């Protein structure tokens, strides 16, 4: 398999060795480092955005928004300053792609952020890293320091008169801070709570200024788009989902890990790439897209992994999570864990999410205990009502998706079927 996004990354190396390599004159050792930024400067800001638009790159954080359009919107904003934010608060359960990018090639993100800043006219960037990533943090701090020292960040990047610097921020363990507007609040020193949209970040984001906010994986793709050209990039993948995708394959597979594949592979391909389930066991379910995603059964193994195909099937790729459960794994405790997770991580700002996640957990606990209020079907109907309320009325994606995995599991895997009515 031709690897694009992760091509510059070697095998995971020993930590000490890695530090030594990076603190040496890394620019020379680093295969292909900063070639994309040089090319971007040749193209000019409008040229970069044109390549991005041609590439049809869609955001990899979960919402699948066209990156070129986002950059263009900010670039055109007359209000200054513009801000650039890299959302690296990777907190979706089952997701670890950004961590591996930072641990193995932090410079790729810094370079991509510099290109994004150049294209959108931002001089100040923030990188908000999940607090629980100590090794990624260490390497990122080192990489930013090195980049500054060698003139790849600062007032005159590569002698081109380009001014950009990155301020690193660490999360403090709140899932909600991965929501882009809650992340802005967190950077600004406020409580991590989402803001109402509109206004959207491209109009009024960080410090109420036009802001580009991109996921780590989205940014890393930019390097290849600039180097190969957007048109060439768009040849990989499917019609509606171009390029490669990082999949975080975990759970009951023989070789769990981070896998890169072009959009359009099937779920079966990915499970097989990760070695499939252990011999003698049977694949029972897959959590696709993370805790905010959905469960699918083995009948969905031929699902094409692209934004359009998953959307048509009523599921989501989310942050690229493929969590495999075999027949040895009891499903109900996993559902309870997901319900507890959303209850714990709701910020508490809006009623549907603050109370809905609690009521959802309580109904599941009653079902798991075999002590439903009324019949099992009554409880399932109640869960469905709670889910609709949360999806329609919550402020942000957390509440809107907090019932997805549980609802999908109940619908397709029927964990409570046959449980007697009280």
């Amino acid at each position, binding site marked *: 398999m031709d690897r694009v996004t992760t091509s510059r990354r070697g095998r995971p190396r020993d930590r000490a060795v890695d530090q030594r390599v990076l603190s040496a004159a890394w620019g020379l050792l680093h295969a292909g480092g900063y070639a994309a930024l040089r090319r971007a400067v040749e193209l000019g800001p409008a040229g970069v955005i044109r390549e991005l638009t041609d590439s049809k790159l869609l955001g990899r954080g979960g919402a699948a928004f066209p990156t070129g359009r986002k950059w263009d919107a900010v670039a055109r904003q007359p209000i200054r300053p513009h801000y650039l934010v890299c959302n690296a608060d990777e907190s979706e359960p089952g997701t670890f792609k950004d961590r591996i990018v930072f641990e193995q090639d932090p410079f790729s993100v810094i370079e991509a952020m510099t290109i994004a800043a150049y294209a959108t006219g931002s001089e100040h960037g923030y990188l908000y890293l999940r607090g629980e990533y100590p090794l990624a943090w260490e390497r990122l701090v080192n990489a930013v320091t090195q980049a500054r020292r060698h003139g790849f960040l600062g007032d005159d990047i590569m002698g081109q008169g380009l001014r950009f610097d990155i301020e690193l921020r660490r999360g403090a363990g709140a899932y909600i801070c991965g929501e882009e507007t809650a992340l802005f609040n967190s950077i600004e020193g406020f409580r991590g709570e989402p803001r*109402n949209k509109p206004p959207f970040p491209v109009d009024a984001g960080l410090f109420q200024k036009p802001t580009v906010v991109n996921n780590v994986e989205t940014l890393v793709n930019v390097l290849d788009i600039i180097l190969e050209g957007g048109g060439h990039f768009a040849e990989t993948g499917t019609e509606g989902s171009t390029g490669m995708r990082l999949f975080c394959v975990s759970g009951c597979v023989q070789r769990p890990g981070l896998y890169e594949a072009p959009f359009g592979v099937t779920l079966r391909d990915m499970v097989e790439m990760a070695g499939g389930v252990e011999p003698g066991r049977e694949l029972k379910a897959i959590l696709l897209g993370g805790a905010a995603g959905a469960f699918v059964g083995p009948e969905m193994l031929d699902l094409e992994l692209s934004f359009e195909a998953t959307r048509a099937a009523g599921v989501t790729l989310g942050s690229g999570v493929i969590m495999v459960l075999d027949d040895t794994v009891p499903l109900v405790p996993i559902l309870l864990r997901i319900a507890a997770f959303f209850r714990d991580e709701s910020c508490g700002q809006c009623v*549907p999410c603050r109370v809905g996640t609690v009521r959802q957990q*309580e109904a599941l606990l009653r079902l798991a205990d075999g002590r439903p209020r009324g019949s099992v079907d009554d409880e399932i109907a109640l869960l469905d009502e709670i889910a609709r309320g949360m999806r329609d009325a919550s402020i942000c994606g957390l509440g809107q998706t907090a019932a997805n995995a549980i609802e999908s599991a109940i619908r397709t895997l029927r964990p409570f079927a046959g449980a007697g009515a009280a």
Partner: protein
Amino acid sequence: MSAVPVTLQRTVELEIDGEAVRAREGETILQACRRQGQDIPTLCYGETLTPVNACRVCMVEVEGSRVLVPSCARKVEEGMKVKTASERVRHARKMVLEFLGSSVDLSTTPSVDGWMAEYDARPERYGPPAPPAAAGERDHAAAGHHHAGDGQTAAHVAQPVKVDNELYVRDYSKCILCYKCVEGCGSDWQNTFAIAVAGRGFDARIATEFAVPLPDSACVYCGNCIAVCPTGALMFKSEHDHRKAGTWNESQQTQTDTICPYCGVGCNLTLHVQDNTIVKVTSPLDHDVTSGNLCIKGRFGFQHVQRRR
């Protein structure tokens, strides 16, 4: 008289429940609806406060929007098609009312009983309320930790009333976390910042710094939080004591408008009097000096009036 500056206000045409409506640019959907005579329930909305759209009871459906939108915060747009009573809207309001009704004491929240009936909200279907928390327990709940229980009782914010000063009480069993007190205390009006939201999720609560009692906090007792509280969680101690004794009788009260005697600002006061005793002081929201706000003297300094020899 000085000249009044004329600002040209553009109008926006939109559709509310199939009816063509003209609204002023910059108005919210709620304002446009209310002018049409449409009643939309609200809890966290305050006409003198920045909308926080946290309660989600005023949700409406806007064509083209994936989710419902809060009418209190969303501005009208040209060509917008709004539905205020669709099945989705009614369901969302019902759920919000049920969620609040099953987790908060709404006994002193005006209008809520009517809304419960209108939207067929049945908070009791989530089970009996969980026993009240001990005093101070919820003040120190750690984010990300909770006791799951068995789901047989419905989690509730019930807890003892905080009575730590002579002027007002904080009954957080009645708090729906509408943020209005935080806004009134903070950047919207008072700029004292004595209270803020602490904790996360269901454990989120309004708190002073480190949950210290009010006399040890930054509170200046302006009472502007009481003025905006929609549920009676923040209440004059006089009203609280009357209610506790069963002697609170709003139908017997008179309201007298006067001007605060303490300084030259000229704040309007509305004295709420029961049995010839002042039991509460408010200020009209539309008064151009106060916008409903007062200071400790206007709000609480009325004892001399009734000190009879």
